[in-house]
Structures are given as structure tokens and as C-alpha cells.
């Protein structure tokens, strides 16, 4: 019987070590990866950069970071330098614009350096890059709708603050949201207007909604981004109503300012536009180098937050 005890101990020890051994192989430790970032135009962009750097450090990846200062030519120059020196195993590119990448992507391909596109899209032939890692806007819309359905038990007249008409973020968030509320006959979008993702316009649209509609008839605001939601909060307060109580508010992005509003109890929920694209991008590189087939799009899904503490816990 004493033997069994030992056997169990050894098995337990093995089961603890085994996953580690496998995981180590898959983190990309020791790889050198070039990361061309657009710039640092927003707080979100900065946290995206920091998230990629932190992930690289945690994995033991040697990250070569290049800030393009909003210029495509800087991005192309950085990539060409990496390709010429031949010292990178892969390139992660956050493109500033959609077009004009064919030549440099071909050069990378010819040199046998895989490229992973993150965040914005490119219009090049998909054979020129490994995969694209980006936010799943549809998922964000679904998540916002699911929260609102739960908060109102499926009975709610919603006004929608639309993003810039035609932008992927606006169209996809709208689509995802509508998919979910379509399941609940009591959930209706009674008004929808564009605020172009801008705070002042979000406020003006909300003012118009409040004057054209009986405010008591508006149960919730669904804003395609936090900025418009913050504008709407102002409009609701000025109309003498209590935001997040008289009218519920849910939006997307999780910018720092919206947490001030959450702290003040003036908004209800925000879905994060996830900056954590480093891990899936590095995973894609490792899978590719291991010879695995990858889908051409790896969606990154943000989480929904209703208070600052939960957000802080995820962003240490």
C-alpha cells in the first residue's frame, strides 16, 4: 500500500509539470519579433502598446518596438530594416492605413518572415500575411445587448447613438446588438442617430431625443462608444433626469473617463475594446512557426465592466 502513495505523488507531480513543459514550447520564448505600432494618439493605443510589451516580456520574447508616429512610410521603413537585417523571426504590424502594404508584405514573405496584422485591416491578398488579430465589434454589440436585456428583463425602449456611419466599429456593433435584442420582443430601438463617435455630437443627439420623445418612454441609451455616452450623460443631467437610474446607459471602449462616470454612478456598463492583442498575435506566430494552419481572422473579445474594481483587477 505504501507504493500506491508514492505512485499517486509521482502522478500528481507529473500532472503539474507536464502542462508547463508543453506550455513553454508554445510561448515563443527566445523568438525575436518586430512590432510596428501606429503611434500613441490615444490612451487606448498606449495601453495596447503596453499590453503587447508586457506580454512579450512575460513570454521571454525579444520585442523590437517601432513607433511610426502615424506615418505609413515609417512603418514600411521599419519593416524593411527588419527584413534586411534578417534578425527577426516574425513581424507584428498595426497598420495605420488599409492600403499600400502589398510590396513590403511580399518582401517579408520572400524573406520567409511571417507577418501578423493587428487591429486595423489591410487590403492586401490574405496569402501575404499569416492572420489578422483584431477586436470583434459584433461580439461587443452582443455583450452590451445581453447586459441590457438582463438589466431590464427584456423590456426596454432603447435610443441608439450610432458611430460614424459606414465604419466597421459602428456597423458591426449595431449588428451584434440587434442580433441579441431580436430574441426579445420587448426590446425595441425607438430612435437611432449618428453622433460620429464624438462627445459633443452625442450630447446634441441625446438632447434632440429627449425633446422629441417623452423621456419617461426612454429606458436606455446604447452608445457605440464611451465618448458619445459621456455626451449623453451631460444631456440627461441637463434635462433634470438622473443618468444610469432614470435612463440606463451602456457603451463600448472602456476609456478612462467612462470609469469616472461609473464611479459617480452616472453610467451603467461599458464593453472593453480589448487592448490585449499581444497574446493572440504571439500565439499566431508560434502556431505558424509550428506549421499549423490558422484562420485568417483571430477575433479578440472584450469584457463588459460595471465598475472600476473589476477592470483594475484585469489590468494589473
Amino acid at each position, binding site marked *: 500500500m505504501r507504493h500506491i502513495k508514492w505512485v499517486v505523488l509521482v502522478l500528481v507531480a507529473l500532472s503539474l509539470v507536464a502542462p508547463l513543459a508543453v506550455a513553454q514550447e508554445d510561448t515563443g520564448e527566445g523568438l525575436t519579433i518586430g512590432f510596428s505600432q501606429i503611434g500613441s494618439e490615444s490612451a487606448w493605443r498606449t495601453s495596447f502598446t503596453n499590453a503587447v510589451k508586457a506580454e512579450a516580456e512575460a513570454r521571454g520574447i525579444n520585442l523590437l518596438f517601432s513607433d511610426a508616429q502615424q506615418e505609413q512610410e515609417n512603418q514600411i521603413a521599419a519593416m524593411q530594416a527588419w527584413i534586411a537585417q534578417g534578425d527577426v523571426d516574425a513581424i507584428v504590424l498595426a497598420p495605420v492605413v488599409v492600403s499600400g502594404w502589398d510590396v513590403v508584405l511580399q518582401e517579408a514573405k520572400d524573406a520567409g518572415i511571417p507577418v501578423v496584422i493587428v487591429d486595423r485591416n489591410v487590403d492586401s491578398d490574405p496569402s501575404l500575411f499569416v492572420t489578422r488579430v483584431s477586436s470583434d465589434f459584433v461580439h461587443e454589440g452582443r455583450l452590451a445587448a445581453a447586459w441590457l436585456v438582463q438589466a431590464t428583463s427584456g423590456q426596454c425602449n432603447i435610443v441608439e447613438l450610432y458611430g460614424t456611419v459606414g465604419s466597421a466599429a459602428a456597423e458591426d456593433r449595431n449588428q451584434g446588438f440587434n442580433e441579441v435584442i431580436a430574441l426579445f420582443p420587448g426590446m425595441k430601438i425607438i430612435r437611432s*442617430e449618428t453622433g460620429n463617435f464624438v462627445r459633443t455630437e452625442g450630447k446634441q443627439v441625446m438632447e434632440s431625443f429627449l425633446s422629441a420623445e417623452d423621456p419617461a418612454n426612454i429606458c436606455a441609451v446604447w452608445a457605440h462608444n464611451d465618448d458619445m455616452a459621456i455626451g449623453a450623460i451631460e444631456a440627461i443631467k441637463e434635462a*433634470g433626469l438622473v443618468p444610469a437610474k432614470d435612463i440606463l446607459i451602456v457603451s463600448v471602449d472602456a476609456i478612462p473617463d467612462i470609469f469616472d462616470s461609473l464611479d459617480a454612478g452616472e453610467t451603467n456598463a461599458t464593453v472593453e475594446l480589448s487592448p490585449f492583442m499581444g497574446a493572440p498575435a504571439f500565439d499566431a506566430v508560434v502556431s505558424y512557426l509550428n506549421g499549423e494552419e490558422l484562420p485568417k481572422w483571430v477575433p479578440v473579445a472584450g469584457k463588459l465592466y460595471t465598475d472600476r474594481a473589476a477592470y483594475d483587477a484585469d489590468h494589473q
Partner: protein
Amino acid sequence: MLEQLIPNLKNQIGKLKIGNFTWQNSRAFWTVLALFIIIVANRLISPNFFSIQMVEGRLIGSLINILDGAAPIMLLSIGMTLVIATKGVDLSVGAVMAICAAVAVMLINQYESGATDFYYTPPFVILIALGTGALCGLWNGILVAFFDIQPIVATMILMTSGRGIAQMITNGQSPTFTDDTLAFIGRGVIFGVPFPIYLYLAVFLLVYLLVRRTAIGLMIESVGINARASYYAGINASLIKVLVYVLSGVCAALAGLIIAGEVKSADPHKNGEWAELDAILAVVIGGTSLSGGRFSLGLSALGVLIVQSLLTGLYISKLHPTANLVVKAIVVLVVLLFQSDEFRRRIRQLVRRRA
């Protein structure tokens, strides 16, 4: 029927005289009519369009919203009207808004983090921002007046680089602030009325007195009609041009501060985005010709109100957002067509031939 009615109406209205302002100018007639129709349409869409309530010491209602929301473009339209009257155009106002807001917010951030130098205090920050606007205008004016660069090109330089400058000032970020004095410019309320409306009225009155109670207005028009002839008549055309661009820069600074105050942030990407086009559109709808000469500050203001009322109408209509731009374009087209003497003449001909 309509053809008979409208000239009749016009004659009737033509007899009305308010001060030295008459309705005889046909452009004025069509501009006022357009605004009237849009407001009636808004009233039809939304039954409580005219309702104004007092809520917590603040008037709320669609009409107040229109005036408040229009204030930044109204301010821009003052400077833009004078610039256009000199046969120029100022494409840089949107970028100048961003620059001035960036300057103000960066300085006020210093004040908020404890800097005690007097130039970090809110009144001085506002003055510095206005000075920055004047400096931007001076730059444009010098390029146009002394180097004889075409206005559209000269101001395009600052239009394209201006947002970059604003981003450099804020280190590419979009800093926020909490100072109530600076925020008051955008969100303050006096006697229930939003502060931006007072600000606009004050600037309008000042500029109106400046151009109509002195010879400056006449000089601006003469420079716009024929700069060379004005020069021979003894008008310092260069000085007049520099003056109007500086004024346009200061107006842009105020507009930028309103937006910054409203959102408590200097968003160098979004502050004043497309504002130059809205301002030019409003001036043109108001009936001031892009080929310079006669101008009317009042009609430009009506032009802004037309655009803003139309926007509010679209917000309260249940049209899908994708239709907005098309509807806006159609309405602007119709207004401009009816202002065109040529178009009205052809319509008259067509009606006569039928009859």
C-alpha cells in the same frame, strides 16, 4: 399662383424696416424663408419642438439646443464672413480650434497640478489661447496679404499641419481637465441660458459695430470687389486682409474653447473636425458670395441656424442615420438654387411658357 404670391409677399416684407436693415435684398428673403420652412418642418416632425422648460435653473428645449449647438460655428462664421468678403477663405479654422484648445488645456493642466505662476491661472490661459488664435490668423494674413499666396492655398498649410501641431502640443494624447472656469466657456449657464450663446452675441455685436459703425466694413467690401482700385483709393488693402484673418483666428480660438469646455478635454483629433466646411457652407447659404464684396454678418448667422436646425430636424426625425448626409445635401442644394437669380429666372420662363 406661387409665383405671384412670393413677389407680393416680398413687396410686403420689403416695406418692413428695422433700423437700417431692410428686407429688400432678395438673398435675405430666400435665406429667411429657408430657415422658416425648416423650423416649420421640425415643428411638424416633433410637436413639442417649440416647448422650452426651466429645469434646475437651465432652459431646455430644441430651440435652446439649436442656439447652443450652433454657437461654435456661429463664431467661426463671423470671421469667415469677413474673410470671404475680402475674396479670401480661411480653411484653417478647424485646425486652429484644435491648436487653441490644446494650448489652453495643457496650461490649465499645469495650473491643476499646482503651478502658481500667474500665466497658468484660468483668465490668463484663456487670453493665451485667444492670442494663439490671433497668431495663427496673423500667419495666414501675412501669407495672403504680403506674399500674395492664394488664400485657399495659404490657409490650407495651417489646415493640414494644424492638427499635427495640436497633437504635438498634447504629446499625441487627448488630455482632460476639471477646472470650472475654463469649462464655463462651453457649459456655463447664466439666467438659464447657455454661456456660448452670450459669447456669440457679444462677439457679433462687437464685430458688427466695428464694421458698420466705422469705415472698416466698407473697406473690407471694397478690397473684396477690387483690391487694386481700393489701393489707389488710399485703402491699405494688406492691413485689412491681415485684420480679417486675425479676427477669424480669434473667433476660431473661442470656438475651440467652447468645444473644449463642453467636453472638458482638448481632443486634437476631433475638436473642430470639418468645422471650416460648416462655416463656409453657412456663409454661402447666408448669401455672401465667395467672389468677395458685399457681406452680411446677420445672414451668415441665419445660415448657421439653417444648418443646425436641419441637423436637429434629422436627429428628431426617424430617418436612418445613413440618410443624413444625403438629406443635408439636398436641402442645401435647394436653398442655394433658390438664391440663384439665374435659376429663378429660368423657372419663371418655364412657368410662363407653360401658361
